[in-house]
Each structure stands twice: as structure tokens, then as C-alpha cells.
């Protein structure tokens, strides 16, 4: 569905059902250079299990009007603008990579409506190397190749996976090419600049779940360990064969973990 946020047209998928703010809400947040389609199937699963689902594409991504937002803090505020305009209550956030930074920041700023957060493939910060930043500025296709190459574990690189007929690597490339020309570069700079992760994580009051990929080359084990150490009693799940793209590489196992956690902490009536 389309809606206005601060005078700009924004798009969010709702999982195949109209958004109903009387239901508990699951919000899915995508990572750098991606969009709402990253969460296909997962969003639909919750929409057909009694939840109102919202999968926004960040400004400058897919069908949301640009420009892209330049800081994680701005993204958290933008998310809150959506939440308030839709009067969404009893919210569970499911976030991936950059989306996790936004979720952490959002939780520390706007804790009132939150019931749970699920953080997938993240640390407290996402430092981005100069080569990737430079490529994102000057050769976006090369930057996309770097991210897709690093992002997927062996399952992705061998085009295996649980969804018959789908190639994760090629699909990932095509998904990332749908952004506005500077969308990826702006996302990466926002990640690189974010420095409030430690304080924001410590301020989170709701239950938190962390999903860690054993072969993640973008949020390495040291980063996820640091995140876990700064959260209060998180539920941690390890996916030893996965890279950074856990929701795509192991969708069924990922969804099983999300389901158990969200059903417990933000139940439908």
C-alpha cells in the first residue's frame, strides 16, 4: 500500500492482507540496498496468522519516493512517523542488517508500542570498508556484486535453497538494482556513520531475539557477540551454514524461530 510520510509517497507491502491496526503488528525492516521484496513469504506468513504486517521500502528504494535517508537516526524517526500515522500498536519488529540498526535506535527512542524485536545478521554498528563505499558511489553494479558475493553463504552461491526454481544470488542482484541510483551508497554511509548502537541496545526494554549466521562475512561473529553482550537476556539462535542472508538462505528455519518468538511475546487474541 502507498501512504504519505512527511509529504513523500512511501510504499509498504502488507503480506497480502489489508493493514488492520486493530491487530498486533509485525514490521519488517530491510537492509542496505534492498527493499520490501526481501521479506516476501515471511511477511505473508504472519499476515495469514492474525497479524497486521507492514514491510516498508525505505525512501529511494523500490516504489518509495526518494531521496534515500542519510542516517540511521532519521530512519528510526521515519519509521515512527509511519507507526504514528497508521496508529500501529503492539509492534514486533523483524530486522535484517541495516534494518537492525534502525530497529535498535527506534526501540531506544520510541519504546512504548514495542512488544519484541528480532535482529537478524547484525552487530551494534556496521562499519563499511572504503572499497565498498567507493564502488557504491562510482560503480553501483560492482558494489552490488561485492555485497551479494559477501552476503550469501555456500547455499546461496550454489543456487540451492528452499524455494523451488529461485536463484538467490541472481535474485539478490536484481533486487538491489531496483533502487534509486544513490540508494545503496546513501544506505552504506548511514550504516558507517552510526555510532549509537551500544547505548541504544542497552536501552531496549522489550524482549529481543538475535539470529546469527555462522558463515556471515558482513556481520562477523565478533560483531554479533558484541551485540548480544549489550542486550538484556536476548534469545539467540545460530544458523551455522548461513551467511548474512539468513531469511533467504534458510527461510523455513528462520521463520520457525521468528514465529515461536513473536507468538510468545506478541500473541494474537
Amino acid at each position, binding site marked *: 500500500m502507498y501512504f504519505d510520510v512527511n509529504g513523500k509517497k512511501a510504499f509498504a507491502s502488507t503480506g*497480502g492482507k489489508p493493514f488492520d491496526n486493530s491487530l498486533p503488528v509485525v514490521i519488517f525492516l530491510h537492509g542496505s540496498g534492498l527493499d520490501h521484496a526481501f521479506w516476501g513469504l515471511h511477511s505473508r506468513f504472519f499476515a*495469514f496468522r492474525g497479524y497486521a504486517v507492514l514491510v516498508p521500502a525505505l525512501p529511494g528504494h523500490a516504489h518509495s519516493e526518494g531521496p534515500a535517508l542519510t542516517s540511521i537516526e532519521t530512519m528510526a524517526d521515519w519509521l515512527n512517523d509511519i507507526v504514528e500515522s497508521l496508529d500501529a500498536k503492539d509492534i514486533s519488529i523483524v530486522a535484517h542488517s541495516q534494518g537492525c540498526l534502525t530497529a535498535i535506535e527506534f526501540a531506544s527512542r520510541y519504546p512504548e508500542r514495542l512488544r519484541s524485536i528480532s535482529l537478524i545478521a547484525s552487530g551494534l554498528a556496521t562499519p563499511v570498508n572504503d572499497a565498498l563505499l567507493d564502488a557504491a558511489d562510482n560503480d553501483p553494479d560492482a558494489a552490488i556484486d561485492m555485497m551479494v558475493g559477501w552476503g550469501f553463504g555456500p547455499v546461496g552461491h550454489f543456487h540451492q535453497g528452499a524455494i523451488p*526454481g529461485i536463484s538467490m544470488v*541472481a535474485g539478490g542482484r536484481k533486487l538491489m538494482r531496483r533502487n534509486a541510483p544513490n540508494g545503496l551508497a546513501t544506505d552504506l554511509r548511514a550504516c558507517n556513520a552510526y555510532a549509537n548502537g551500544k547505548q541504544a541496545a542497552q536501552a531496549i526494554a522489550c524482549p529481543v531475539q538475535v539470529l546469527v549466521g555462522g558463515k556471515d562475512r558482513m556481520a562477523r561473529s565478533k560483531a554479533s557477540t558484541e551485540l548480544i553482550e549489550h542486550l538484556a537476556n536476548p534469545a539467540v539462535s545460530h544458523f551455522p551454514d548461513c551467511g548474512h542472508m539468513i531469511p533467504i538462505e534458510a527461510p*523455513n528455519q528462520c521463520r520457525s524461530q521468528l514465529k515461536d518468538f513473536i507468538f510468545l511475546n506478541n500473541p494474537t487474541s
Partner: protein
Amino acid sequence: MSHFHHFDTLALHAGQTVDGEFGARAAPIYQTTSYVFPDTDTASSIFNLERGGHAYSRITNPTVAVLEQRIAALEGGSAAVCTSSGMAATFCAITAILSQGDHIVASSQMYGGNISLMKNTLPRFGITASFFDPTDIESCRNAIQDNTKLIYGELIGNPGLDILDLEGIAKIGADNHIPFMVDATFNTPYLCRCFDYGANMTIHSVTKWMGGHGTAIGGVVVDGGNFDWGASDKYPTITDPYAPFSGINFLEEFGPSAFATRIRAEAMRDIGPCMAPMSAFLLLQGIETLSMRMDRHISNTMAMLEYLTNHDQVVWVNHPSLSTHSSYAMAKKYLPRGAGSIVSFGVKGGRDAGKAFIENTELASHLANVGDAKTLVIHPATTTHSRIDADALVAAGITEDMVRLSVGLEDVADIKADFENGFRAAQRIVGA
């Protein structure tokens, strides 16, 4: 830097997860119609497209899925759907996005089945087509109408072998927000990956070079994932809710794989031209050696071109690798590894001499197929293109003396020796 597996590695491994129970190294043949669900929630999730998985082999099958994901990987496509034949793939791909009142702009130089589908069958369902000269891309642009929803062509036209200007046609498609679908059967992804040049979907008869051994019929539609379906309201089957699956919006849920998923959700369910798992297994065996076979097809083709162009009994030889061919430059650009292994030539003495040639070759098999490991010959005017009218024959570049040769993998000296027998028989006709 990131590392991606290369073509030959993907041809062997892509799409297959080694069987966890017995460790089978080859892709197992899942010869089953249906699959036991662990619980009702999983079952309903699969049926409602909330998760991947297998319910019924008309829709998906684990062996077929390996082939689909392998071909998607080799093509650089976001997704693939295998079908019972190449023609089934074409029909499913077209009807996934076109409906009554819509229009196709298609190359005039295509396999007779493609032409008949668009000229005779689809019009019965309200889908019409106009044909353009593949050597003149402006004729493609000029053929576009307000209701045109698809541009269709074969990269290597059958049987005239003219090469489609992929980038030129793709630009026309992009300018008019119309997807460009390429039948890539003759080139395979080893000789050209059409998505690299702007095509939006490819079709293959995997019966041919992809499988390569003449043992199984099959087709595939590959979604390039690079067409912006949401940029207009022209493609409601992709962008609007689809009632039979609880109002699913394929573009929202599947993004770059929306087109392929629409085919699986609608065509495979409502029409049902599924690939048999045994066929998928046979085709996978062929794909494992695709690059090596294609290299040999090409080297044998080049040797046969030299032989035929210097033969007294041959009136003309047609292949895009010959500098005399009108598509020579296009072939260099799009097919640098070789412009396929189909050669057409005219036998001195016309129709009867051509017939005598074909009937007196023994190694080369006279049959209606191409892309086999074995060398094949046929007379198009009386076989593959016999059901199209005289004007279409001319448009397709077919003459009565034409012999179509599909160069195989035999020792090329033996192919030449066999052809000598054929030419001697043809010469007796000329001399009679």
C-alpha cells in the same frame, strides 16, 4: 573481492543440495506425485505461497527444482520454471502476461512451431501478433501497437540463422515499457547470456543442446528479474492481486521473481505442462558437460563450414560465422564463442538432389530435432516448416533446396566421409 562460481562449476553443482540421508552425489530422481506434510500448518503455508516446498509434482518437484535452479544460475536469471517442452514454456510464458486483446511483436524468423502458435493458435484466444524482419530493428519498433505487451524473437533465427540485435531490440522494449523475451535454444547460456544484453526473459527447448543427448523433451522459462512490471498498469497479472491465491500480489511478494512465480502459480496449476522428474535427471546429466559439448559443436561446425564452402556440390552455405552472412557482425558481438552449430546449405540440383543427399547419408540422422550429440539433417520445407504458408516460408528464408544440418560431436572426418556419400547420390540426380 567477492568470488562467484564460474560457469563450468555451476553446470555441475548449482541447485543441488547433496542428499542428507544417503549422501547421493548425483541428483536423486524424486519419482513421486506428492509429498507427506509434517503438519497442517506447513501444508497450508505451502499451498498459500507462504513458504517454499513441494506439495504436488505438477507444481514443483525436487529433481526438477535442481534443474530449474541450475539453469537460472547459468543464465544469470532470478528464477526458472521447467515445463514439459519448449513449446509449453513459450505458451506458459506468453499467457502469464498477455490476455485477450493483447498483441505480440515477434521476429519473422523463428521455429515453425513458434510462428504457428502466434499466427494460428493464440489468435483464437484473442492474442494477436505482428512479425518483424530481424535484420531490421526499426521494423520491430514500427510494429508496436498500443496493445503490444511483448517483443519476442530467437537470438539465432531458425532456420535462416540471422542474429537478433539484442541490445537494439531491448532498447525498443525499454522505450515502450514492453518486456523482451528471447528463445535462446540455439545459443544456450554458454554461447550468450541474453540478460547481459537487456533481454528480460529467455525460453529454451532444453531438449536440444542443453540436454544434448536426444533423450528427453523439456522446456524452461527463465525470469531475468530485470523488468519493472510496476512502472505502468499494463501488466495486471503481475502487479494486481490474484484471487486464486488469497489475493497474492506477485510483484510485492516475489519482486524480481514475480514473472516466474506467476507461471508456477497459474500455468503449472491450471494448465499443468510439468516436466517429468526422470526427464529432469537426464537433462541435468547433459548440462553437466554443456560447455565442453558446445566447444566441440562449434569446432566441428567450423570444420564443416570450411568443407561445405569448398565443395563442388554445394550451391550456398549459410552460417553467421561466415563473413558473407548478413549477421556476421552481430554474431561476433553477441556470440564470440561461436554462432551455434546449425548450418544450412543448398545442394546443387534443388529439391530432388537435396532429398537424395539426405537419404544417402548414414551417420547423419534424418530427423526433426537439433542440438543432439549426433549429427542430424533435415529438409525444412517438407518437415519442420511444412505447415506454414508460402509467404511465411519466404519470410523465414527457407528455400526448397535447403538442407539444415545440426553438427554433432562425432569425429569430423567421419561426418565429411558420410556427406561424401550423400553428395555422390545428389550428383547422380543432377547428372540424370
